[in-house]
C-alpha cells in the first residue's frame, strides 16, 4: 500500500483547499447543508466510494493485446503438437468454429520452466518470464464471439452483441476514483476501427463514468494527450484570470438561486478541470524519469519505444490513483499468416515494456495493490491456417494476472491436449470480470444499475469468482 500516493478528497476537503475559496458557502450554510444532504453525501459522482468489502487491489492496469495472441505459442505449452504435427485435429471442431480446422501446427518456439514456481513460458516472452513467480496464468479462458468485434466487446463490456457499459465504467461507478485531478478511467492509445469508443464507453451509465482516451491507435504516444486538456491560445496565468471572472459570474448566479447543487457542481468542476489541466500534462511528460527507468521500459529504443511509453504512463497514472488504466498494443496479433515472423515482432515490442512495468511496480511497492491483466480478446487455433498461420479461437485461450490479490507463480486451469478448448477449471470472461471486481472489493452481483426496467450487471446473469487464484 502506498497511502501517500492517495489523496482521498472529500468534497469538503476540496472546498477547503480550493485556492479561490468557497468560504462564502458557510454563510448560506443552512441551505447548502440541506442541498448537500439531498444530493447525497457528496456532489461528485467520481468521489471515492467504499467497496462492498475490503479490496485486494485498488486499481487495475489492463494490457490489451488486440487481435488475439496464440496461447500455444506463449503461455500454454502443448508438447503433443510436436508429436502429432500435421495430423488432423482428432475430434470434431469445437462448437462455434465454423471452418474445418486444419492440421496440428506445433509452436515454432520453445517452452521452458521459469522461476521457483517453474511455470512454463515460451521463448517469445523472455523478459516477462523473469517475473514468472508474479504471474497468475489462467490457461482455461473461453469467450463468445468468433469475430474480433464481438470478442473485443465481450472482453470489455461483458456482452458481445448489445451495447453495455465497459468494465472500466462499471468500476468507476462502483468505486469512484482517488485523484480528482485526473480522470478515473484512462485508456491509452485505444483502438479506433474495431469496437472503438464502445470499448471504454459508459452506455446507459452516466457519461461521467466513460473512459478518457489519451491519444489513439493512430497517434504516436509522444503526441498523445487528453482531449481539450490545453488551451491552444491562452497562457495559463491569463486563463486563471479569466476563470476567476467566470467563477465570479457563477457565484453570483448561485447566490441568486440561494442554493443549488447543480450550480455548485459546475463551479467545482471548473476548479477540478483547471487542476487537471495543470496536472495531466505533467503526467504525460516523462522527461523527469531516470535513464534507468526509461531503459527498464525500453524507451528510446526500437522496437519497444512506443509500447514502453504506454506502460510507463500506465505506471505514472497508477501511482497517482487512477482507478482503471488500459494500455492497448496495436491491432497486430491477428496472425492468420506469418505467425512466426509477426508474433515474434509483436512479442519483441511488448515483452520488455511489460516486464519493465512489473518490475517497476514491484520496486515501488505498487504491485501489491495494483492488479495487472494481460491478454487478447481470444486465442488462436493449435491447428494451422495455411502453412504458417492460426485462426481465431474463442474456446480456449490464456490471459494472466499479476499483483493485487492473486497468487503468483500459478498456472490455473487447462486446455485439452492440443490447446483447442478449455477443459479444466474453465474460466469464462464473465468469471474473469467477477474475479476482477472481487479483487477490487466489489461483489459483481451487487454492482448493478437500473436501466430499461431491470438491474444490469457487468456479468449479466453469470460469473463466478475464480477463488483458487486468490492469494
Amino acid at each position, binding site marked *: 500500500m502506498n497511502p501517500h500516493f492517495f489523496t482521498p478528497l472529500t468534497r469538503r476537503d476540496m472546498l477547503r483547499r480550493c485556492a479561490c475559496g468557497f468560504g462564502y458557502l458557510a454563510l448560506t450554510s443552512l441551505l447548502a447543508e440541506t442541498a448537500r444532504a439531498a444530493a447525497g453525501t457528496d456532489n461528485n459522482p467520481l468521489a471515492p466510494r467504499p467497496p*462492498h468489502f475490503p479490496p485486494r487491489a485498488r486499481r487495475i492496469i489492463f494490457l490489451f493485446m488486440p487481435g488475439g495472441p496464440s496461447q500455444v505459442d506463449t503461455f500454454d505449452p502443448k508438447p503433443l503438437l510436436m508429436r502429432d504435427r500435421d495430423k488432423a485435429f482428432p475430434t470434431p471442431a469445437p462448437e462455434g468454429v*465454423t471452418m474445418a480446422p486444419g492440421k496440428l501446427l506445433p509452436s515454432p518456439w520453445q517452452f521452458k520452466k521459469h522461476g521457483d514456481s517453474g511455470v512454463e513460458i515460451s521463448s517469445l516472452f523472455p523478459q516477462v518470464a523473469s517475473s514468472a513467480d508474479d504471474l497468475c496464468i489462467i490457461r482455461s479462458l473461453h469467450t463468445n464471439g468468433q469475430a474480433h468485434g464481438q470478442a473485443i466487446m465481450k472482453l470489455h463490456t461483458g456482452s458481445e452483441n448489445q451495447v453495455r457499459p465497459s468494465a472500466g465504467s462499471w468500476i468507476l*461507478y462502483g468505486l469512484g476514483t482517488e485523484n480528482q485531478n485526473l480522470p478515473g478511467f484512462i485508456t491509452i492509445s485505444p483502438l479506433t476501427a474495431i469496437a472503438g469508443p464502445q470499448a471504454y464507453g459508459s452506455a446507459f451509465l452516466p457519461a461521467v463514468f466513460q473512459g478518457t482516451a489519451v491519444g489513439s491507435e493512430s497517434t504516436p504516444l509522444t503526441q498523445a494527450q487528453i482531449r481539450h486538456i490545453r488551451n491552444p491560445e491562452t497562457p495559463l496565468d491569463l*486563463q486563471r484570470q479569466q476563470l476567476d471572472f467566470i467563477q465570479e*459570474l457563477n457565484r453570483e448566479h*448561485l447566490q441568486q438561486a440561494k442554493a443549488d447543487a*447543480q450550480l455548485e457542481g459546475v463551479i467545482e468542476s471548473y476548479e477540478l478541470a483547471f487542476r487537471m489541466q495543470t496536472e495531466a500534462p505533467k503526467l504525460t511528460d516523462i522527461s523527469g524519469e531516470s535513464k534507468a527507468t526509461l531503459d527498464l521500459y525500453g524507451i528510446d529504443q526500437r522496437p519497444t519505444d512506443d509500447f514502453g511509453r504506454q506502460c510507463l504512463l500506465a505506471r505514472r497514472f497508477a501511482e497517482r490513483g487512477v482507478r482503471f488504466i488500459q494500455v492497448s498494443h496495436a491491432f497486430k496479433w491477428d496472425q492468420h499468416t506469418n505467425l512466426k515472423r509477426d508474433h515474434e515482432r509483436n512479442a519483441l515490442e511488448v515483452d520488455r515494456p511489460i516486464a519493465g512495468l512489473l518490475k517497476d511496480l514491484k520496486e515501488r511497492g505498487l504491485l501489491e495493490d495494483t492488479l495487472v491483466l494481460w491478454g487478447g480478446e481470444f486465442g488462436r487455433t493449435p491447428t494451422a491456417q495455411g502453412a504458417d498461420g492460426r485462426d481465431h479461437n474463442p474456446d480456449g485461450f490464456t490471459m494472466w494476472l499479476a499483483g493485487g490479490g492473486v497468487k503468483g507463480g500459478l498456472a490455473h486451469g487447462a486446455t485439452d491436449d492440443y490447446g483447442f478448448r478449455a477443459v479444466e477449471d474453465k474460466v469464462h470472461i464473465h468469471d474473469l470480470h467477477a474475479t476482477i471486481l472481487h479483487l477490487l472489493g466489489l461483489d459483481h452481483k451487487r454492482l448493478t444499475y437500473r436501466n*430499461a426496467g431491470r438491474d444490469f450487471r457487468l456479468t449479466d446473469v453469470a460469473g463466478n469468482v475464480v477463488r483458487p487464484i486468490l492469494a
Partner: protein
Amino acid sequence: MSNIDVSRSVLISPVILALLLCPLAAPGAVETRKEQLTREGVEFFEKKVRPVLTEKCYKCHSAGAEKIKGGLLLDSRKGWMKGGESGPVIVPGNPEKSRLIHAVRYTDSKLQMPPKEILPAPQISDLETWVRMGAPDPRGAPVRSSAFPVPSSRHWAFLPPRDFPLPGIKQKNWPRNPIDSFILAKLEKHKLKPRPPTDKRTLIRRATFDLTGLPPKAEEIEAFLADNSNDAFAKVVDRLLARPQFGERWGRHWLDVARYADSNGLEINLSYENAWRYRDYLVRAFNEDKPFARLIREQLAGDLLRGDNDEQRYDQLTATGFLMLGPKLLFEPRKAKLEMDIVDEQIDVTTRAFLGLTVSCARCHDHKFDPIPTRDYYALAGIFASTATLIWDAEPKGGPPRWRERPLAAPEKAKAVEDHAAAVAKLQASLQAAGEMKTALPGGVSSSELGGIVLDNTMAQLVGSWKESTYATNFIDKNYLQDGNTGKGEKSARFVPDLPQTGRYEVQFAYVPRRNRAKNVPVTVHAANAARTVLIDQTEPPTIDDLFVSLGTFEFAAGTNGAVVISNEGTEGFVTIDAVRFVPAGMEMTMKMQTGQKARAKKSGTAMTDRSIHQLLDDLQELRAKEPPPVPMAMAAQDGTICNCRINLRGDPEKLGPEVPRGFLSVLEKTVPPPASLSAEASGRLELAEWIASNQNPLTARVAVNRIWHYLFGGRLVESVDNFGALGERPTHPELLDYLALRFMEQGWSFKKIIRALMLSSTYQMSSDLDPLAYAKDPENKLMWRMNRRRLDAEAIRDAVLAVSGQLDLTMGGSLSPTNDAPFGAAAIASNAQVASTRRSLYLPVIRNDTPDLFQVFDFADPYLVTGKRHTTTAPTQALFMMNSPFMLAQSRQWAGALLATAAANDAQRVASAYTQAFGRPAGAEATERALRFIAEYQAALEKNEPDLEKRRLMAWQSFCHALLASTEFRFIN
C-alpha cells in the same frame, strides 16, 4: 438493487429505486400464505434472499445437492417449513426464533452456517429482514408463467385512465387551468405553497428554449416586456409553436426515443446515408402537429397505409425508418441469431417508445415483474419477423447483409433503376464466374473478386520499359510487371485512382515476391496533404492475403487527385508491380476476410480467356454509362415472408419451442381487444399500430403526455419515462396524468395543444427560486412547488453559442453527410462534417461511436439506446471543453468581433448588449463595471504577449465573451 446509489449523486438523475432501497417496514408477525405474497415481498426475496440461498446454501440444502446435509432443504418454501432433522428453521415474522438466523449470525459456536465462512453482514441483515417480513417465498407455488404477484390487470398503468373530478382547493386565484388545480391540491394537502410567477424575462427565455431550443432575441424580449395584455404570454407561446424551429426541437426529442443515428455502429459502422429523411419527416410532422396516433401508425406501418398522393405515400414510407435505425450486428454468422436480434431491437424500441413497457425482458424468460409472458414476446416477434428488415443477398455478394431501402419515386422510375441494377449485377456475376474460373489457371486472382478499389498493373502509367510476366503463380488479373533488373532509376509506374468519396483509405501494394527481388523498392503515396515514400522488401511475401502489403492509411479527396508511384531508383534486384488497392479506412478487415475466403474457395475449373473477360468489362462499362438518374431512397420497412415465430428457448434461436400465433400483449386483451386473428397475407404491423394508437389503450397516451411533461418541466409525474411497468415509478399526480392523457386523446392526439395548455398553466410559469421550507419537505420537488432549474442539453448549448456568436445557420433539412451514394460509407468521413458545420445541432450526422466532443461531454442521448430522459451530469470534462475547445474559442472570437464592430456603441453598451444576448437580461451597473474592469485588466496583462493594441483589445473582448458563454447562467434555464 443499486447498492451504490450513484443516481443520487448524479445531480438531477432520479432516485428510481426508492421502492427497493427502503426495506419495507416490518409488517409484524404476518402469516405468509401464497395468496398474501405482496409484490414487495416477492421482489425482496428475489433480489436479496434467493441469491444468497442459491449461492451459499443450495450446495448442501437443495434437491440438486450431492448430499443433502441435515435433511434440510432450502430450495422451496415447503423445505424450510418442514425443516431439517431438528425441525423447522424459520419462524415467519420472528427472526429471534428462527434457527436459520441463529446459524448465519455465528453466535452459537455449534450452529454456524455456512460452515466455512460467515456471510457478509448485509446479507445476514437481509435474511433477518426477510424473516421479519414473514419470509415471503414464492418458490414452490404453482408458477404458471410469471412470478408476478399482483394480478396483472390491477397494476395502475394497465387500467384505463379515469376522468377525475377537479379537486377542491383553497387558493382559488392561483389556477389558470385544471392542470394547476391538480398541482395545487397536492401542495395544499402537504401544506406547501407554489412559488410566485417568475419574471417575464426568465419566462420568455424558458419558453423559447423549451419550444425552439434557441435563446430569445433581444427584440422578442422587448416586445414581450412591452405587451401588458392578459394574453401576452399566450401570444409568445403561439408564435413559438408556429416557428419551424419548434419541429426541430421536438423532432429531436423523439429522435432520442427512436435511438436515431446516421450510422449502424457496432463493428461495421456503415453510413445510414438515408436516415436523415426520417429525421426530416419528424421535423415536418411536429411542425404540422400531425396527430400522435397518426405518427404511431406511420412509424410502425406507414408502408401499409394508403396514401392520397405521392408525397403522403413517400412520407409514410419514410416514417418506417423508425423500425430500421437500430444497430445491427451484421457480421453475426448465424442468420437466425442476427434476425432475432433485429426483431428484439424492434420490439424493444416499439414497446418502450409507445407503451413504456420493457417487453424485451421476456425474450429468454417470462418477464420477472410485469405480466408479459415469453409467449407474448414471440407473438410480437412473429409480426416483426414477418417484416423484411435486411437484404441477405446484398451487393457486394458475399459481404454482410444490408438494411432495406425503398424508393421514393414513381414505380416506373424506381423499376428502371432496379432493372438497371439487376442488369449490372448479372454482368458482375458473369464476370465473377469468369474470374473464378480464371483464378484456377496458373496465374492469379481476378481483381473483380477483391474488395476495395483495385488498380491492376495494366492501368498504370508507365515510364521506361517494363516487362509483362506471368512466370510466378500468384498475381492479380492477367499478369504483372518486372523491370528486368535493368535501367535503375529510369523506370516508374504511376497509379491514379478515381475515388468515389473523400476520406481515409488504406493504400495497399501488390507485388510478386521472390528471392531475387529488390529489398528497397521505393513506393510513394501522394495523398491529400502529404506524400510519403515507403521502402518495400520484395524478397518477403506480402502480408495481406499473400498479395498486398499496406503502405499506410492516408486522407484522399474524391476523384483523381491521389496517386501511387513505384520506382526502381536505387534498387538492387528485380522490381515487380502487380496492383495497387485503396481500401476505405475501417474496411480493412472486411476486405481481408473476403479475399481470404476467396483464396480458400479457389478450385479447378475450365479456362476462360482474357478476351471474354474484357468483353464483359466493356459491356459493363457501356451499361454503366446508361445508368438512369438515381431515385431518392428511404430506409423503410416492407412485409416479408409472413410467418409465426416459435419460442426461442432461453432466447436461443437454435433451440426452438412451440409456435406462437402472431399477436399483441395478453395483459391488455380485455381493455384493448385485438383483432380476432391476423391475416396470413400481412405481417400484422398495421393492426399492431392501430392497437397501440387506440383510444382504448391505457398506456399510449399516458406515456406520450408524460414525455411532454418531462421535456417542459424536467422531472416527475412518472419519473421513469420509458418504464410504466411494475418496476417503474408510480405517478406523483395520477389524476393529473389521466386528465392530460384523456384531453390529449380528445383533442386529436395533438402535441401542440397539450404543450400550449401546460405552458399557459401557473405551474409552468412559477419561479425556480428556492423556498427553504418547501425544500426541507420536498427537496426533489416531486410536488411541483417550484419550477425546476434545468441545464440546457448538448444541442441547445451548441445552438445557443452559435446563435449568440452570430454564426448559426438556420437552413432546414437535408443531409450533411458527404457519403451519399457511396456503396459503403466509411462513417468516420461523415464525422468530419460535424466539426465544420454551423447548422443547427440537429443536422450534424449522428455517427454511432463517434459523436462530437460537445455531445459526449454534455450527455447527448446514446444513439444505441432508447432514451426518454437524458442524464444531466456535471464533470470536469465539460469544463475542459468550455475552456479550451477550438469551437468555444472560435465562437467567442466571432462574437467579440461582432460586438466591437458595432460602431455606434461604447464599451458599456457593448457589455449590455452581450448580456442581453447571452442571458436575456440587462447587465446591472455593478456587473457592467466588473466586466469593463476585467476587460481592461486582461488587456493590460496581454501586453507582454501581444504588441498590437487592436489585437489585444479583440483578445480581451474574446475572453470576456468566452466567459459569458462558459458561465452557469448561460447554460441553465431558471
